[in-house]
């Protein structure tokens, strides 16, 4: 059973085909890496999945029944699609703890927000997540964190949402080698329970994920399979790995 089905999707910007007849299926619990040169359409694909933009053609379904082209960002998030941006975005003038609180799964309406989440559950979850991503001080302003720490905070926020599908765009950017490996471990741990799509350029990281890899090029799937298999593909070497 797939959690995500992308079929024959195309999307142009001012006549430029950023996504060109894209087909992709992610199984429940699968961890999938997406690689490809700059401008291949990786981020645009995530924009399509999350309802930020609409495809010109084709269909996107979540859990086979939910038509993602009819939903906005909040709608897809509520369905259970969590997204980490390429450029880390946390809410800088709130504290680390407050950022997590905002992300915690729960009702998202205005009236329930006036009341706020249940305090006891919230603080337990907050402590668990901060421990997981090794951020010690929940009272610290998010704006004061280093680039790498912001990445971690954003990952913690992603998990706080308890999403069924995680879209993770270049999580390792700005991280040390050790942190990169820890991220890979974390994602591998999360797979199974969650379905995960990771975009990354760092090949050591992709190797550490030890999962199926999809190579995107000019908005189209160029190759798919285990990393060793796709990296032996002459076309892939030509457009991406060889450079």
């Amino acid at each position: 059973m797939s959690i995500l089905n992308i079929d024959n999707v195309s999307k142009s910007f001012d006549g430029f085909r950023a996504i060109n007849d894209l087909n992709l299926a992610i199984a429940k619990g699968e961890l999938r890496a997406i690689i490809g040169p700059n401008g291949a359409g990786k981020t645009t694909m995530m924009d399509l999945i999350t309802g930020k933009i609409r495809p010109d053609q084709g269909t996107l379904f979540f859990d086979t029944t939910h038509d993602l082209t009819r939903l906005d960002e909040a709608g897809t998030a509520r369905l259970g699609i969590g997204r980490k941006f390429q450029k880390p975005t946390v809410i800088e003038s709130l504290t680390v703890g407050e950022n997590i609180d905002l992300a915690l799964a729960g009702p998202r309406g205005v009236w329930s927000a006036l009341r706020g989440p249940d305090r006891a559950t919230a603080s337990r979850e907050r402590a668990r997540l901060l421990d997981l991503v090794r951020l010690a001080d929940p009272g610290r302003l998010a704006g004061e964190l280093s680039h790498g720490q912001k990445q971690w905070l954003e990952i913690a926020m992603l998990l706080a949402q308890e999403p069924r599908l995680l879209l993770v765009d270049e999580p390792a950017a700005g991280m040390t080698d050790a942190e990169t490996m820890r991220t890979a471990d974390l994602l591998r741990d999360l797979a199974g329970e969650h379905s995960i799509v990771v975009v990354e350029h760092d090949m050591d990281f992709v190797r550490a994920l030890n999962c199926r890899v999809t190579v995107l090029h000019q908005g189209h799937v160029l190759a798919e399979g285990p990393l060793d298999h796709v990296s032996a593909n002459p076309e892939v070497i030509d457009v991406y790995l060889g450079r």
Partner: protein
Amino acid sequence: MRQINRNMAVFLSGLFVLTVAIPLMQGQVLPDYAVQLVGKYLCYALLAVSLDLVWGYAGILSLGHAAFFTLGAYVMGMHLMREIGARGVYANPELPDFMVFLNWDSLPWFWGASDSFAVTLLLVVAVPGALAFIFGWFAFRARVNGVYLSIITQAMTYALMLAFFRNEMGFGGNNGLTDFKDLLGIPLSSPGMRLGLFIASALALAAGLLIARAITQSHLGRVLVGVRDAESRTRFLGYRVEEYKLFVWTVSAMMAGVAGALYVPQVGIVNPGEFAPANSIEIVIWVALGGRGTLVGAALGAMVVALTKTLLTGWLPDAWLYALGALFILVTLYLPRGIVGALEGLKPARKPQEVAA
């Protein structure tokens, strides 16, 4: 956050002292008109708080907030017109003078309920609230943001000004509504009424501050900061940003309407000039001066500017606008976080809440 609580406690205590002191001094050290003047400042302060709620906490820079204030003022003004009754120049028991002058033979439908004080109180919040809701519903859903949103808020108040200038609108044209006599049967010029209006303004300001604080300190307030600082991130967390903006925008407009309604009986007139774009820009200056995103600072900024204005228009009537401009430039350059920010800067607490406009 604790900072906000402390500032709020200090400000509310000061307001309380003022509210107790002024009645004691009224008619002795303090002339009657001064009571009215301070009452007017308090209305400005409430208006400033309403703007700070949307600008400081949700990043919505409204350049049209005077529209909500003025609508509240007109609603109250209509009631005051009806209270004049047959004491007008034309002694028409039913119609306000300007309608007699225009040869109208009956009240337009929208004046129908204006004789009821209770309905007036309701409409004081409902009319600005409804306009804000409709405006916001379209603007926020269309994801109009930043400068574009500011411009359309300005266009909104400008359009209202033009409309209200027209006699056919039924709001007294360019003369507006004036010559009020009394409220609830008590003459507006009586010391008791002046004091009552002053106290009502102080209570409204206190309530406005507490409501704004409750909103901004709640979980909803955090969502709003998220909207302000990282709108897209907040959307991807599952929050429907437009609903949150609409909520706070509508609450803010209602608050501004209350300020306008309390203002009118104290100044004795409302005319379409109140809708002028410059008025809305002045509110922004108050908030920036006092400290955006501090609530108390907004109230303080409004009162400081209003007081300076009163003093300066006495001494240098022509120079007032230049003084305001210079003040604004100086504050932007040297006190980027306003008066309250500068006071807090003496002991650095949390990092400044940097925000893109």
